[in-house]
């Protein structure tokens, strides 16, 4: 019991009071203003569909993979989208390995709702042969470091991974056209997913005194805040989802204020994701050009006189 006590992270009484008093003067402990987001850095791995997002100290890695499966019986012409979250114990002393806890399930659910309900990913284009073969897209989110606001970072990681993922091209063949042939990437260029819009999750924290509001709470602020709300909006101004699970009540005008703030932040974050994805795509296209075996290597040696 003592060993477990020794390893958990604690907040002192001084810190709790200081965070609250500093917020009364609109100061946050990392020097940000209440409505300022942390710096987002989006990086990509070697494979298609892997991304790593860093939001301040929070780090999340996203991986997208696809598999051919049989569709659900009530949706024979649609592909399947599923999200799995893994809260690695190296991210936070309170994360235990094994079954996902409440926080992990909630995070997965928020991102899932943002992508599925708003139809951001076109699942009908994932259907190859109705009722027989569809693509099942699986998004794995690994939390590597918990610096606060995991939902937003995980959402950006999922979107970045989806935008850079390429699925193999397949065509129908066989005697009666019922067989599916999956072409390897060297023969036919893999295809990107159809993503209509990018739903961005923006999280807010509420504090008890005089309904103070902050955007993008850090780890310390999350331990002190009275309630949290996550709104998923896109750059067009559509509200895709809102999640407010428990915590203290807030008046309606505060919610409207949050939605307005979220819409303006979503535009800048969408632009950042798209720019990063474009850089990676051009880089990958250039790399693929060199793969073509049209030019054979020539050994150039210095002529020795």
């Amino acid at each position, binding site marked *: 019991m*003592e060993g477990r*006590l020794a390893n958990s992270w*604690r907040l*002192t*009484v001084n810190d709790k009071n*200081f965070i609250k008093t500093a917020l009364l*003067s609109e100061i946050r*402990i*990392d*020097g940000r203003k209440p409505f300022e987001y942390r710096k987002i850095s989006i990086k990509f791995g070697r494979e298609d569909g892997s991304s790593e997002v860093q939001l301040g100290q929070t780090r999340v890695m996203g991986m997208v993979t696809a598999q051919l499966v049989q569709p659900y019986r009530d949706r024979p012409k649609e592909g399947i989208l599923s999200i799995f979250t893994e809260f690695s114990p190296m991210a936070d002393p309170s994360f235990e390995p094994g079954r996902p806890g409440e926080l992990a399930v909630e995070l997965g659910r928020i991102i899932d709702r943002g992508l599925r309900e708003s139809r951001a990913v076109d699942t009908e284009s994932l259907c190859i042969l109705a009722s027989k073969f569809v693509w099942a897209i699986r998004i794995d989110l690994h939390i590597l470091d918990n610096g606060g606001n995991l939902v937003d970072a995980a959402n950006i990681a999922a979107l970045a991974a989806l935008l850079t993922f390429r699925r193999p091209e397949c065509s129908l063949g066989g005697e009666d056209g019922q067989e599916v042939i999956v072409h390897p990437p060297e023969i036919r260029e893999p295809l990107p997913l159809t993503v209509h819009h990018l739903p961005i999750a923006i999280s807010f924290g509420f504090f008890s005194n005089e309904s103070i509001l902050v955007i993008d709470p850090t780890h310390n602020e999350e331990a002190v805040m009275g309630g949290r709300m996550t709104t998923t909006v896109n750059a067009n101004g559509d509200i895709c989802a809102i999640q407010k699970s428990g915590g203290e009540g807030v008046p309606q005008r505060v919610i409207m204020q949050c939605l307005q703030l979220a819409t303006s932040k979503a535009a800048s974050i969408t632009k950042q994701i798209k720019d990063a994805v474009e850089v990676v795509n051009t880089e990958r296209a250039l790399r693929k050009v060199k793969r073509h075996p049209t030019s054979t290597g020539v050994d150039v040696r210095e002529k020795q006189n």
Partner: protein
Amino acid sequence: MENKQSSSPASFVDSTVVPGDVVLDLSSMTNQTIKLGGGLRQDCDAISATKAGTLRFSKPNKYWIESSQKRYVPCVEDTILGIVVDSKADNFLIDIKGPAMGFLPVLAFEGGTRRNIPKFEVGTLLYLRVVKANFGMNPELSCTDASGKAAEFGPLKDGYMFETSTGLSRKLLSSPACPVLEALGKKLSFEIAVGLNGRVWVNAASPDTIVVVANAIMNSECLSGAQQIIMLYDLMDSLVVVLLRETKK
């Protein structure tokens, strides 16, 4: 492999050593009392390193190995900042960022008797001294100095505590003063307590000052002296705002 004990101690001071290096040979130093700090172990006449880091020497006779980590290994006579986790009949359980909880006896206060045991709620920040730190046992702490006086030990009120590496907290306590602290002290007035276990507490009149000081110290971790001053010049804009606000009050 023969143990080469002929190397002079001066050659190892301020250089990097790894566990197993024999850094001092006592047979060549007679009639001297040497104090061994953290990371050194005595095997008969040979002093060997048990930690990787830089060997340091301070006059007149103290040797220790310095390395910077996030985790703290308790060492006797260190001054640290601990957080109260629980209170038992005889001890308070204190979290000191080490492998085991520290025990603070309820009587280890100036004028402490069974009748006036202080009541600390969970989460109180204390400035403490390490009395005993043996491997495998919980370290024993105290809120008095060696002669029994209070001497600034005890609970810290208000302010803000943040965590750093052990190397940075040692730099902040070194003399001559660390460039960051000197430059900050010239412009701002604040109170600071540094624990060798990688915790720093700052208090000032206005929250702006506290935030600026905390961020400046956290950013100075990897910077050299000159870079720290440059980093502070960048923070000067916010410092000017802070000064204007302070003069208005």
